[in-house]
Every structure is written in C-alpha cells, then in structure tokens.
C-alpha cells in the first residue's frame, strides 16, 4: 500500500483537522442556530437532473476542500506536500501518471486513460509499451521521460517521494530501455502481475526532458542516477515559487488535458484546455476553476447563495452536519439544495483504530488476546454509528480489504458483512469464559490468570485509555458509543480527545520499529487507510510483522505467509484466504468508513459522476447542457 494516509490526510484528515473541527466548533451549531434565528428553512427537493444539449465551452467552478489549497506543482512530491489536493486535483490534471486508475466507480486500471498499455509479462520481465502522447512543447512522451522519474526515485525516493514503497530498487533487478516507446522491468523474484502494476508501476509519472536540468544548465537524470539529486533540488526550489507557477516555462510543459492559466497561492486556480493534449478525452469546458474555502460552512453559504442566484459553484459539497438523513436502500436523502444533485463519494479504503499489541502500560498482554479483541469488536456497533452519527452515509469496514465499492478483491464471505455484528452478550461470554469477572458498568477483573492469558495476572482490570482525534462529530459520537457499549461488560475506556497530529504522532507508526514510545493502548486518528496510489489492497504495508506502518505491532506468521501469497500470485483465492483470516484476527479495530465527501453538482453540469473512489479527477469529462 502506498502513502494512502497522506492522500487521505489531504481530504480526510485535513477534513478532520480543519473542516470538521472548524465546522463543529464554528459552523454546525451556527448554521442550526442561525436557521432558527432567521426563520429560514431549506427546501427539501432532491436535485434532479436536467436534460439538454451539450454545450461546448463554459467555465466550471469546483470548491476545494476546506482550508486545503494546492501549493506544490512538482509531481515528484515529498511527504510534506503529497496530498489529494496537490496530486489528484492539481498536478494530475497537467502531468499524467503512467497508469491511470479508476473505471467508473471501480478502483481498477483504466487502460483508456493510461499513457502506456498494460504491461506484458515474460517470466519476471514486464514490458511496458507507451502509447503516442506528446508534451505541450511538441516532444513525444518517451521511455526517457519514464526513466527520468524512475532514476529520481532511485536517487531521492526514500527521502523526497511521499509515496515511497521501495520501488524500484526493492523489487526490480534491472530496467532496460528497449526503444523510445518500450522498456522492460525485470523483477528480483516472481510477483503478482496485478500487484506490480497497481502498487509499483502506479507510482510513475513521466517527466519532460525540459525539466532535466539544474541551476547550471541541462542535466542527465534520465540516464544517470547520480545527477538526479541536483535536478530534484532545482525542481523543488522552482516549486517553491508559487506566484510563478502559471508563467513558468518549466511547469507550462504538460502532457495532461489541462494547463494552468492562473494560480494564486491563496488557492484560486484556473485551468484551460491543453490544445495539444493527445489523450482520448479532450476537455469540453473552456475553463476550469478551483476556489478555496476556509470551512465547509463557508462553502455551504456560498453554495446556497449560488443556489439562490448569487455566487457560482458548480461542484461543491454539503457539510456532513447538514447531510439529509439517508433512508434505508436509498443512495441519498432529500437534497437541501435546489438545482443541485447530491452524490456521496466513498474513498477506496478501510477505516479502523489501532490497538497496540506492544503496549507497555500493562495492557499489551490483554490486547494480544484474540478473545479480548473479538469481545471489543462485538461492542463496536458499526451499524448504529452509520445510522446515527453518519446519517446513513457510511459503510461498515469488514476486514482489511475495502468493501466500498465492492470489488473482485473482496472475499465472498466478507461480502456478507462484518464477522462481528454488535452483540454484547457474546462479548460478555468471551470474557467470562476466559477468566474475567464481568462487572457491568463497573470494571471487570481477571480472576483466573491461566484462562485470562499469558502475561495477565489475577486482579488485572480492563481499563484502557483511548486518545482520539477530536473535532469530527461522528468520530466523537462513535467513541462515546463504544465507551458506553464497553461499560456493559465492565471494560472501562477513558476517552481522550486530542489534536489529530498528536494522535498520529503517537500511533501512526509501529512503536518498536519507529523507536517511539509504546506507552499507549488504543488510538484513533479517525481516518484509517486509503489504497491510493497503491491500489491493490494487499497487506504488506499495514499488517505484515515488523512493518513500520503496522502501527499496533500485530504479528502473525500465518498472516505473513498469506500476505506473501498475495504478492506473488494473481489467484484471487490468495487475497480471499488472507483477508478471511485477518478479518477474524482483528489486528486493528475496524470502524465505519464515513463518506469522503457529499458532492453537490450543478444540474446543468454533466459528466461529474460516477466519482472515482481513488479520488482521481477528470474535469475533461465535464460539460454543460442547456
């Protein structure tokens, strides 16, 4: 898996940190109170669709996520700047990745929009053949442009590529440029072809030869790895000149459907079609604008004003606290905005909170007990959280593979739902049968250490601290609900709302591997993980023993074996075996996957849906009708 948390952070955790926090504190109550005060109420018409004839041209305005603006143009983006807003919503419009992911609502390889054909394999050698694409300066996109990126990865990937997976050096033994349109990657052992394409080749974005330079002139990063550090430094420095983005001769060389026509560091960005775009879908719009917002409440004010004939936003979003409750079996509730269509977007990922198997608070041995984790899972009422705090806009996380959308990766058994539906009776039974004296609304105590498990002494009490990222209403309510449910069987959870950064600093890395304190039991940063830009949800990053992003330090030889199989074979049964095992093992506590954004789309704008669960973004598909 790739740097999904970074990607997720830009919208999900940025949303946590600012959008939701601000709007809970400032906006949510304010909107509700003000509606009452002003005697206003929203209309409750569902945004219908408008039929009409396609219009060539027009300007579409897209609302950026709250307090999130593009601020880094160089697609080889470091950890500090890699995010959805910088990648999906900005650089990818101009600089296309080698392989594009997302087909309708499926997170799969889009062969039509990719710059290269799917690799063909002979033994351990993958041959990549480029299609005919050209840069806006007239040069073709060649294998040298691919090698420019690959060499930069080799040179500075570990420190300066925010989605570093170790590719290519960790997996590729040799790379051969056969011709300007063909190159071959030979892997150091047999890997799943899907995994190699989805999680390694997916990292590549060809860069134009015109970028292969330093302050002192042209360089040779495309052919000489040791030249790449200086080139990176030069390009990174150029990327710090935000006011110069739109006029830069460097950044104006694009191979995507759009090019920048205006850029303000405050987040106002305007794109116009790249007339030399050689891909299959040319933009219909004459202009595409991105506009910034401080909070989602501020955005909603403008959206409502737009609906009332004021300022214009064509694609915006509804704050979650204003979401109309979703009836069962419906996609959305009654849209409060007339003239718009409400379309929820769920990101390709899973959500969970971390349990620290390596905790040195005294609770580590308890967390290591499968029966305890399963008892806690029976107390996590995902269905109630979705129905209540999430107002229906969420899906249950059933295991280590995302189930929204349902893909061929998801095992048949997990398609039927979570193995641990809410059941406090089963939770109680698991505890009592393992030597615990259960005290409802009190604190349960181990009375038989031999049954409680290794390292748990008689008299040990089930008391845990659970820091969670504050500011997201549904996460707060979910945590309170879990606290209440857990108290039914005498598990005392001390909730500790903390800033998002503090929770991630505490719990986003395996404490022993990252050499950070292990003095915590449970932690919830709210965002889980999204499978972008490593799209196949294999478990080597999150759940393999000793992996640094295996935050809780779960370790199982069986799991490791299953993971290895997912990396080396394309047989879907390998994925099924692994996830079926891990879903019952509960290496983390699965929690609902809340909606990523409740998109509001102007009814006269078409082509916005279906929205891509990988968060890739294609305004070249958009067009107005009249």
């Amino acid at each position, binding site marked *: 898996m790739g740097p999904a948390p970074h990607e997720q952070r830009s919208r999900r955790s940025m949303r946590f940190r600012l959008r939701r926090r601000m709007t809970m504190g400032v906006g949510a109550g304010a909107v509700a*109170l003000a509606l009452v005060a002003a005697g206003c109420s929203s209309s409750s018409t569902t945004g219908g669709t408008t039929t009409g004839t396609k219009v060539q041209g027009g300007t579409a305005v897209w609302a950026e996520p709250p307090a999130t603006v593009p601020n880094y143009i160089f697609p080889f983006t470091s950890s500090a700047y890699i995010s959805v807003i910088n990648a999906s919503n900005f650089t990818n419009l101009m600089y296309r990745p080698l392989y594009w992911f997302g087909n309708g609502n499926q997170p799969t390889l889009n062969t039509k929009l990719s710059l290269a054909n799917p690799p063909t394999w002979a033994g351990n050698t993958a041959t990549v053949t480029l299609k005919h694409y050209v840069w806006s300066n007239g040069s073709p996109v060649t294998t040298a442009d691919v090698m420019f990126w690959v060499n930069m990865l080799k040179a500075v990937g*570990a420190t300066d590529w925010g989605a570093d997976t170790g590719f290519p050096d960790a997996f590729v033994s040799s790379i051969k440029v056969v011709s300007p349109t063909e190159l071959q990657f030979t892997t150091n052992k047999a890997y799943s072809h899907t995994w190699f394409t989805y999680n390694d080749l997916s990292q590549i974005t060809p860069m134009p030869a015109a970028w292969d330079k330093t302050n002192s002139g042209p360089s040779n990063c495309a052919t000489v790895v040791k030249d790449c550090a200086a080139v990176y430094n030069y390009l990174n420095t150029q990327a710090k000149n*935000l006011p110069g983005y739109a006029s830069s001769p460097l950044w104006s060389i694009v191979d995507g459907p759009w090019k920048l026509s205006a850029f303000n560091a405050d987040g106002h960005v305007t794109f116009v079609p790249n007339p030399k775009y050689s891909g299959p879908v040319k933009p219909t719009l004459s202009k595409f604008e991105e506009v910034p917002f401080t909070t989602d409440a501020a955005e909603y004010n403008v959206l409502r004003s737009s609906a009332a004939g004021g300022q214009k936003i064509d694609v915006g979003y509804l704050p979650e606290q204003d979401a109309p409750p979703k009836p069962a079996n419906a996609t959305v509730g009654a849209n409060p905005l007339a003239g718009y269509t409400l379309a929820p977007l769920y990101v390709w990922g899973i959500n969970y909170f971390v349990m620290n198997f390596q905790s040195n608070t005294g609770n580590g041995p308890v967390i290591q007990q499968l029966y305890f984790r399963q008892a806690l899972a029976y107390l996590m009422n995902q269905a109630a959280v979705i129905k209540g705090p999430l107002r229906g806009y969420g899906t249950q996380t059933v295991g280590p593979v995302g189930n929204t959308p349902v893909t061929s990766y998801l095992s048949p058994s997990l398609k039927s739902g979570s193995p641990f539906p809410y059941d406090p009776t089963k939770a109680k039974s698991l505890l009592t049968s393992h030597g615990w004296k259960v005290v409802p609304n009190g604190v349960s105590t181990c009375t038989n250490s031999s049954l409680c498990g290794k390292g748990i002494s008689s008299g040990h009490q089930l008391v845990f601290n659970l820091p969670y990222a504050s500011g997201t209403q549904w996460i707060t309510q979910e945590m309170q609900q879990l606290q209440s449910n857990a108290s039914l069987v005498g598990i005392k959870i001390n909730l500790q709302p903390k800033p998002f950064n503090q929770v991630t600093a505490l719990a986003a890395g395996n404490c022993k591997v990252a050499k950070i304190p292990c003095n915590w039991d449970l932690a919830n940063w709210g965002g889980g993980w999204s499978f972008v830009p490593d799209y196949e949800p294999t478990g080597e990053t999150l759940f393999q023993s000793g992996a640094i992003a295996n935050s809780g330090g779960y370790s199982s030889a069986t799991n490791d074996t299953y993971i290895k199989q997912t990396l080396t074979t394309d047989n879907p049964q390998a994925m099924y075996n692994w996830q079926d095992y891990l879903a019952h093992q509960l290496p983390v506590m699965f929690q609902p996957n809340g909606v990523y954004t409740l998109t509001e789309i102007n009814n006269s704008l078409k082509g916005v849906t279906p929205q891509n669960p990988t968060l890739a973004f294609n305004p070249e598909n958009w067009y107005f009708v009249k």
Partner: protein
Amino acid sequence: MAPVTTGATGDGPEREGEALAAFLIRRGLQAIIVVLIVTMITFALLRMIPGNVAVAVMGPGAYRNPAAIRQFDRVYGFNLPWWRQYFLWLGHLVTGNLGFSWKDNQSVASLLANRLPKTIILVGISTLIALIVAIPIGVLQAVRRNKFTDHAFNAFSTIFYATPAFLIGIILILIFAIKFPILPPEGPQGEGLGVVLTNFNALILPITSLALLTIALFSRYMRSSVLDNLTEDYVRTARAKGASERRVLIRHVMRNSLIPIATLVGLSIPGILAGALITEAVFNYPGMGFLFFQSAQSQDYPVLLGFTVVVAVATVVGSLVADVAYAVLDPRVRYVSA
C-alpha cells in the same frame, strides 16, 4: 517608566518634547526586551507540544519513511537542542528572514504580506466604524441616562456584546446573501489589496459583523466614562461659570471620557493585526487569524513564530500609542521617570 499624572503643568514645550523623546527611547528599548522574551517563551512552549513535528507535517504515513523524518529534522534543525534552534531562528529574524512555512510552501514573510493587509482592512475599518458610531451612542446614553434612548441602546449593546461573532455573521449571510441575495456571502476573493478594495461590497457583511460587536463594547465603555465625568467637580464648576451644556459636554466631558477609549483602542491594535478568526472563517476571508489557526493545527512553527513577532510588536506599539494618547487627552500627564 510610564506616563505619570503630575500636579504641575507649567513645563515648557521644549522640555515636554525632550521628555517625550526620552520616554519613547526608553519604551523602545523595553519593547525590544519584551519582544525577545515573548519569542523565547513562545519558542519554548512550541517545543513542548507533544508529538513529532515531522510526523505532524507529513501525516500518518510519515513513519513509513524514516529517512524523510530524519531529513526533515536535519534540514529544520530539530536534531539540535531547542536553545540552539532558538538562536538560529533569532539570527535569521535579525536579517529579516522569518522562515519558511512547512505546510504552505511559502516564506512566512510572503504569507504575512498576503494576509496582513486583508486583516488590517477588515478589522481596522470595523474598529474605525465602531468608534465613529459608539462614541456618540455612549455620550447620548449618558446624557439621556435611564430614558428610553439609554435603555434602547443598552439593549442593543447587551444583545450584540453577548452574541457570538459566528452567529452574527451567519445571520447576516442568511438574510443578505441567501434570503435576499443583495450582498456576497463571502469576503473579497483573491490576493492583494487591489482585489480587496475593488470588491468592497464583499467586505460589507464581514465589516458589519465585526463592527456590531465592537460598537457594543465601545459604547458601554463610553457611556460609563461619560457618566463618571458628569459627576466630577470640574463639570459643576464649568456649569457654575455659565458654560452651556453643549460646551460642558464637548469641551470638557468628552475629552476626559475618551481616555479609557484610548486605552481600548491602543490595546485593540494587536487584535487588528492578529485578525478575527471566527469572522474570517465564516466569511471565507482568510486573514491573520485563520493563518494562525491553521498553523497551530499543523504545528507550522515558523508561521506561528512569525505571527507571534508581529503581534508582540503590535502589542508594544499599541500600548505606546495608548500612553501617548493619554498625554494628548490629559494635560496633567507628563512623561517623566516614575
């Protein structure tokens, strides 16, 4: 050193000028020390925030990339003791380098240069309007004490003083931008003072929102100050000498009553620079307040420190302005060593 009230008023203008100059020099030196102490305390407090800065900046996936964390620490000096980091930062500050934002990919100076004018326009104009409106209201209330006008304005100031800024903002938006869409629901959009000034109608709602709060505050102070002065002996004397009520009020009472307002205005200068977080957030008008909020969220220390320097300097200047205003308003005040 501070301005002190003396009984003597017979110093010549030359002596007075020298005293003022000496006072300003003393206060300038004090100001440097105060700003240094403020930055030192802020720097130390920021370093005490739990968690790893690199992880805060890079997000939950940062631990996947330990080399990047090490590089971040090396580049930004986090591998050094905090006091050495402080002196490094101070060295840069002396040369006018406020640092570089880790999150915004811009120099702190350019961030402040973009945000500060927007904030000064918003908060400065609303404060000015508030003063222009609140002073006559306060005087009127005092003169018509316990009459309908007084009660009506009392009710006005109590309501707006007690109303949260966001609520006023949202109500104004609902009425004037959504229900009757005659004004934009957001402040001027774009960078630069030109954009702000050419879209002045977009500033009407945010300025009104802030001014309503400030009018309520200033008018209450003005009312009580005028009431206090109306009972003073000098007022009785002036009346006994046959001065008209209008002359008593404007020539004597008004001037003395403005002293607490001068203090308030002086102390509001840092607020004018620090911004109005809630109003900025509600009206999608990111100024200094919102910048500080965002930077605090993301532990963007260079921005927080740059902001602190600006506000610390503004506080010192504001206090100085208030002191000078005392002397202008009250001839008994002289700048001598306390």
